[in-house]
């Protein structure tokens, strides 16, 4: 306490005085806001999350939108179009789509902002009780100020970041009694300035001249809800905009998907192409004008401009004409599609967790298709893979194993043991083996009694009496499980003082004098307690990992082998084991040891080690009692999910703060590790890395640079590999003293060290599974960024707690498990759902669909704009490169908006190549996404060539047909307007039929959209070409009668049919041949049944291959450092704040502000 507090005075910046509003308006806390207006630096509790009000909406929103390059580009075009010298298209051809695009985005923003307005209003007007004038008065949230003392009831939302002062919870212990709350102004909090770190808070409280350290456990953060507690009091530390949640909102790092990047580059490519094409045509115009144009008297325009200047103007003219190569509505359509896909995720009933009423939530709406490209998953263990619930499953006492029914009778004994004879029994406890209870109740087996006595005595659990019930507070859930098991079997831990422990042994209460508590630590891997029984005998009870216990057993100890066998079995069943043993200590021996112990405990230097040595001296000659087996309960469906994801070639890395053994154990139980895997440990691979390093150093420098040579694998022997490393090892290799930090790796001179990381990542990626244990939150993030950096792979992190925040934010996609305690993970995640198993649906179904849809959408979008725009290009060769467009201006205006957008948008929203069941059933279908096969530069250029091909057909077939023709009635239909009608009609029909070909999931909506688009085209065309509209606007609608005259001719219809046919038939043919010759994974679904049978065959029976000793060396033992310090220090239990406050208000993330 003393040491930690002396370092405090650096948090001087943020001072909060309880219940003293005036204090926070003192001049020293004022800061200049604007000119001379000063304001308190403490925000009020009213929040403002909305961006716009009535006046600012239009200018601000437009400003925001024009910050985007695409919109700016089209604005530039619009400006070009009003310059008369170069205007080749009327202004409305760009303005109409631009306005539409802007207004769709503005509409979306408006809806969002209105929701925020409503939300703000609702939140600011929430009621809360505040201590004012000596009593609690109801007040609105927005009136709460820093320093106020608030009272919160069960299920209340927490209005600000508050320091918990007291609560009604009986196990809670608090700083301040309720009665003392009014002792105004005496508590002064000093802490760090407001920040956005949800996982960190440090400060001190000065209360009655004593300083108390404060950390995050003392805080209740805004946005959470009070649960399990009737009421509590708190002191507002940060209000409104200063709260952690508000600091977190909005400024989240903008994540982009691979496709985003690709798409941008493609747009740039198109832009470059546009400039090249325009330049080429401009040159063409220069020559043409020189040769023909200048001599054609009828083209005389009265301007004395030379050919090259005309060419220059023509360049800009073509930039305008061909601007539609860059699809204007691309970005807005992509946004709409992603929004829709996010909604589908939110709506998915199969990712809804009914028990907690938690649906999945896509918190970021811009990453969906990335979900279909995941290569690496980094998962937290506790709370994500496991439920963090420990169940006492089995035990072995005197060589006899309990908890397993005799083999063959599994089905018969399924009812749990009835513990109603024991009034202290915890009803949630379940045990399947009736014989053990019978054994204990008969009190015949001394060892069994001793076994449970040990469990009830040898621990550091704290107990609280709550009404009739005992509530245990354990440092680790394992310990809680063991004490609870003892309690149910009749050995009830009742209470403890600094030096006594009272238990109830079946019917009688006994108090033991606690002579010494030899606490657990990771080196000792055991804990012991030395007790003096009421009859004066001194006995040491010890529990710990089998490896350490077996070394210290007395030669006289019995049942060693049978217990060993049981341990093997437990380990194979992925249970976590502890060995229990005891030793009788004579008074003299104890006295002698106690002296040494006392000496050691006052040693000034290296006290820990000294104590350990002393402990060692008494913990020997132990008598084995038996072993316990605890199940670390997995979340539902974890092994299945992991198996599915593994089949989809997604590599799963588990990053956990747990011990190596525990982590490995969980690895096995969730089938991440299997028996056929070769497991490598950090220490083993050091050697491999060193060898690789040495080889690299010996290589000549030139070949070292040449990265084309694929490095030989680290694990040349066939078979699966798994890697288990610890955080410490990671640090030693990545940030060791000889090695520069990550950021400096690339500098010349450090080249030698730079490849270490690559080598590590290469090696780790060769493994099927990687488990990193004992990693800190920061290391978790480092591991993620290593893989991101060197593998250029798409990564996903999933976690539930504050310690996962770093890695969630680092990964390309962060997933938070919602509905758990704490909201930090969810708040910083991109997707949140309640169960790990939903991950397979998120990736294999939603991710896959989203990816396929987005790829289809983009491919088609580029195609349709190329097919559309390049017709102008071909036409240029026959119109003197005069920027004459091949279609009517109005068609150009509306094409992207109405004639071709809806069907592809629907494909982007609804398309499914296979349904969700098959997607899940055949995880291999996920592979194309991972490899980015469906959208890359190759596909892009294929789309472009497809577009170019279509535009060629759409121009040259009508060209051929128009060359020498005349109409049915002798009138020449070969006029420009008829030509424009024919090309436009061919184009609209072709692109709409093309999307029909690309649609693999035909709903009535798609059908409606395709037919509707074509119908709308003809409808609008006939309207625009009608007499009425020409009479009103004679110079705007000049195509009067063109549609009706042209489409009267069967000849032109035949031309359209031929054009459409030639555009589509080769595509069908090529698709069919491609599919037949090089079938993709998805195409193989023709032989679904065959496939299914194969799958079935491959599925191995999940039988345990018992007797395998591969895991022998790595028993998971369940224990962690307990409260021994607290217990032995004799500090009042009232002071154990930082530990126990955790349980006061179970914070559950409930909403995102």
């Amino acid at each position, binding site marked *: 306490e003393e040491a930690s507090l002396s370092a405090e005075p650096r948090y001087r910046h943020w001072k909060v005085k309880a219940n003293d509003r005036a204090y926070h308006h003192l001049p020293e806390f004022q800061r200049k806001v604007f000119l001379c207006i000063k304001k308190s630096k403490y925000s009020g509790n009213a929040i403002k999350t909305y961006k716009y009000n009535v006046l600012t909406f239009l200018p601000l929103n437009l400003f925001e939108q024009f910050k985007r390059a695409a919109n700016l580009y089209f604005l530039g075009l619009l400006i070009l179009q009003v310059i008369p010298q170069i205007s080749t298209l009327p202004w409305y051809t760009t303005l109409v789509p631009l306005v539409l695009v802007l207004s769709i985005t503005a509409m979306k923003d408006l809806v969002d902002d209105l929701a925020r307005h409503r939300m703000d209003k609702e939140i600011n007007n929430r009621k809360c009780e505040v201590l004012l004038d000596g009593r609690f008065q109801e007040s609105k949230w927005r009136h709460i100020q820093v320093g106020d003392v608030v009272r919160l009831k069960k299920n209340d939302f927490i209005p600000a970041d508050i320091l918990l002062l007291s609560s009604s919870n009986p196990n809670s212990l608090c700083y301040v009694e309720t009665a003392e709350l009014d002792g105004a102004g005496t508590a002064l909090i000093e802490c760090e300035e407001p920040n956005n770190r949800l996982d960190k808070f440090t400060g001190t409280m000065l209360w009655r001249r004593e300083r108390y350290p404060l950390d995050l456990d003392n805080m209740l953060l805004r946005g959470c809800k009070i649960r399990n507690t009737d009421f509590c009091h708190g002191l507002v530390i940060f209000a409104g905009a200063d709260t952690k949640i508000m600091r977190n909102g909005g400024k989240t790092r903008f994540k982009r998907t691979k496709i985003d990047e690709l798409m941008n580059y493609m747009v740039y490519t198109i832009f470059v192409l546009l400039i090249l094409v325009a330049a080429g045509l401009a040159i063409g115009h220069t020559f043409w004008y020189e040769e023909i144009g200048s001599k054609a008297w009828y083209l005389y325009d009265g301007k004395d401009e030379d050919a090259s200047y005309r060419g220059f103007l023509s360049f800009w003219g073509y930039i305008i004409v061909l601007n539609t190569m860059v699809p204007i509505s691309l970005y807005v359509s992509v946004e709409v599609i992603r929004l829709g896909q996010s909604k589908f995720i939110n709506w998915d009933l199969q990712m809804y967790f009914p028990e907690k009423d938690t649906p999945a939530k896509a918190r970021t709406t811009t990453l969906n298709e990335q979900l279909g490209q995941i290569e690496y998953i980094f998962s937290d263990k506790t709370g994500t893979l496991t439920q963090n619930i420990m169940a006492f499953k089995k035990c072995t006492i005197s060589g006899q194993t309990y908890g397993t029914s005799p083999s063959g009778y599994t089905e018969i004994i399924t009812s749990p043991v009835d513990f109603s004879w024991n009034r202290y029994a915890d009803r949630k406890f379940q045990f399947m083996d009736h014989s053990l209870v019978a054994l204990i109740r008969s009190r015949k087996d001394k060892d069994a009694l001793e076994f449970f006595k040990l469990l009830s005595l040898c621990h550091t659990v704290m107990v609280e009496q709550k009404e009739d019930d005992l509530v245990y507070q354990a440092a680790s859930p394992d310990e809680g499980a063991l004490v609870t098991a003892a309690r149910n079997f009749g050995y009830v831990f009742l209470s403890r003082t600094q030096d006594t422990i009272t238990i109830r042994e079946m019917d009688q209460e006994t108090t033991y004098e606690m002579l010494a508590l030899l606490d657990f630590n990771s080196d000792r891997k055991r804990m012991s307690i030395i007790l003096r029984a009421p009859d004066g005998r001194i006995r040491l009870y010890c529990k710990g990992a089998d490896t350490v216990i077996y070394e210290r057993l007395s030669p006289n100890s019995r049942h060693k082998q049978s217990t060993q066998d049981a341990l093997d079995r437990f380990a194979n069943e992925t249970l976590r084991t502890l060995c229990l043993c005891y030793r009788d200590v004579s008074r003299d021996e104890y006295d002698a040891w106690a002296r040494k112990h006392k000496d050691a405990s006052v040693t000034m230097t290296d006290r820990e080690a000294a104590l350990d040595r002393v402990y060692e001296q008494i913990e020997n000659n132990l008598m084995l009692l038996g072993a316990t087996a605890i199940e670390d309960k997995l979340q539902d469906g974890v092994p299945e999910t992991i198996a599915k994801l593994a089949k989809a070639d997604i590599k799963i890395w588990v990053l956990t703060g747990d011990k190596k053994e525990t982590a490995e154990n969980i690895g096995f139980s969730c089938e991440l590790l299997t028996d056929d895997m070769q497991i490598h440990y950090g220490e083993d691979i050091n050697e491999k890395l060193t060898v690789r390093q040495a080889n690299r150093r010996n290589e000549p420098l030139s070949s070292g640079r040449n990265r084309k040579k694929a490095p030989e694998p680290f694990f040349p022997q066939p078979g699966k590999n798994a890697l288990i490393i610890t955080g410490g090892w990671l640090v030693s290799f990545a940030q060791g003293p000889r090695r520069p930090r990550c950021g400096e790796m690339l500098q010349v001179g450090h080249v030698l060290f730079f490849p270490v990381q690559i080598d590590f990542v290469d090696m780790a990626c060769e493994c099927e599974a990687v488990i990193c244990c004992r990693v800190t939150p920061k290391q978790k993030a480092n591991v993620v960024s290593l893989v991101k950096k060197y593998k250029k792979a798409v990564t996903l992190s999933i976690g539930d707690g504050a310690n996962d925040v770093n890695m969630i934010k680092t990964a390309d996609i962060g997933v938070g498990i919602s509905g758990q305690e704490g909201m930090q993970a969810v708040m910083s995640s991109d997707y949140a759902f309640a169960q790990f198993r939903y991950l397979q649906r998120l990736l294999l179904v939603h991710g896959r669909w989203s990816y396929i849809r987005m790829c289809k959408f983009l491919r088609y979008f580029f195609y349709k704009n190329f097919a559309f725009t390049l017709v102008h290009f071909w036409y240029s060769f026959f119109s003197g490169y005069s920027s004459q467009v091949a279609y009517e201006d109005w068609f150009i205006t509306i094409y992207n908006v109405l004639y071709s957008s809806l069907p592809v948008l629907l494909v982007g929203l609804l398309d499914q190549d296979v349904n*969700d069941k098959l997607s899940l059933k055949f995880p291999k279908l996920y592979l194309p996404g991972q490899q980015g096969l469906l959208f890359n530069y190759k596909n892009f250029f294929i789309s472009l060539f497809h577009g170019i091909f279509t535009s060629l057909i759409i121009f040259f077939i009508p060209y051929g047909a128009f060359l020498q023709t005349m109409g049915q009635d002798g*009138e*020449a239909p070969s006029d420009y307007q008829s030509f424009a009608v024919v090309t436009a009609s061919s184009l609209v029909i072709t692109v709409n039929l093309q999307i029909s070909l690309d649609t693999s999931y*035909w709903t*009535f909506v798609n059908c409606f959209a395709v037919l509707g688009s074509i119908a709308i085209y003809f409808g609008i065309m006939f309207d625009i070409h009608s007499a009425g509209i020409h009479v009103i606007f004679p110079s705007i609608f000049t195509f009067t009668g063109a549609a009706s005259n042209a489409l009267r001719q069967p000849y032109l219809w035949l031309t359209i049919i031929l054009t459409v046919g030639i555009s589509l038939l080769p595509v069908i043919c090529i698709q069919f041949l491609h599919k*037949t010759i090089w079938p993709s994974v998805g195409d193989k679904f023709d032989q679904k049944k065959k496939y299914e049978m194969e799958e079935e065959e491959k599925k191995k029976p999940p039988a345990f291959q018992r007797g395998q000793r591969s895991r022998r060396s790595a028993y998971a033992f369940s224990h962690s450092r307990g409260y021994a310090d607290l217990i032995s220090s004799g500090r009042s239990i009232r002071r154990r704040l930082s530990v126990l406050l955790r349980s006061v208000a179970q914070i559950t993330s409930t909403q995102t502000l």
Partner: protein
Amino acid sequence: MKEQQETANRPDNTAFTQQRLPAWQPMLSAGIVIPGFVIIGLAFIGIGIALFVTSQNIQVLERDYTGVENNSPCFKCSDPSTKNCVCKLDFSLDKLFEGPVFFYYGLSNYFQNYRKYGVSRDDRQLSGRLDNFQSPDEGCVPYQYDANNKPIVPCGSVANSLFNDTFKLYQIVNGARKLVPFDGKGIAWWTDHNVKYRNPSITPLKNAFNGTVKPTFWSKPAYELDPSDPANNGFVNQDFLVWMRRAALPDFRKLYRRITEGDYKNGLPAGNYSLEIAYNYPVLDFDGRKKVVFSNVSWMGGKNQFLGIAYLVIGSLCVVMSIVMLIVYAKFKFPDEE
């Protein structure tokens, strides 16, 4: 042990939200594609044959009269300095040219689709708005106002460059010239004649043009284009309308007259003919060509073999590809079977 289970956040279970909309999932399976190609191929071949045969049966007579070659009857007229030059183009038909016969003039290397040329017109003026008679649209420059700053009506390049060669066809019957009557009615689109182009409703029409001048290239004002028929003047003059409808491509034909009357109702009988051309329109500067075309039409319009051949080629390719696909399919789907 749990609180009352709430389901407030439970998503709706509808076909749409759960992405289970009833749908048809068509596959490009061999059973559809290969027969489809055969059917489409056969259909295309059928259409192609019909088009080709029809096209073959259409009679076309085309004569270039630019007068580039020395032996050309119009050679003397091709000199720009000659004014009011008339040349005669003689030709003979050895069998009946079936009627109704359409007579076209054609221009080559003539860019009516040039963008600036195309927009050099005032559609308001052409729809008879008098305001635009006095102040034509900017787009008409340099044919907006004349040198005396008088507005040009009809303004703009398109109108200015009106084709002004005229033709008379004589049949030589026993050495005597017999005029073949031309029908110039309804050679323009109905919509152009009745909707798009309107004369101002002022009678006489001449008054509407007060204060305006004729286009510089024109020899007579718009209201005197057809002295024989007062209704065929101004902007609704059929020749004017035909010219104003811009051609899509630089080689084009425009309908000049029909031959539907009198002795020539059923076509042009075999015999010798002489076409008298008033050669006015200069094209040699820009290497253009002028020609006349006699043609009859079918249900599919004039003679054009392109479409028929294209249909035949594509149709045959479809059939060929269907066979290729069948072979490939058989090879890859049943590799073990021979």
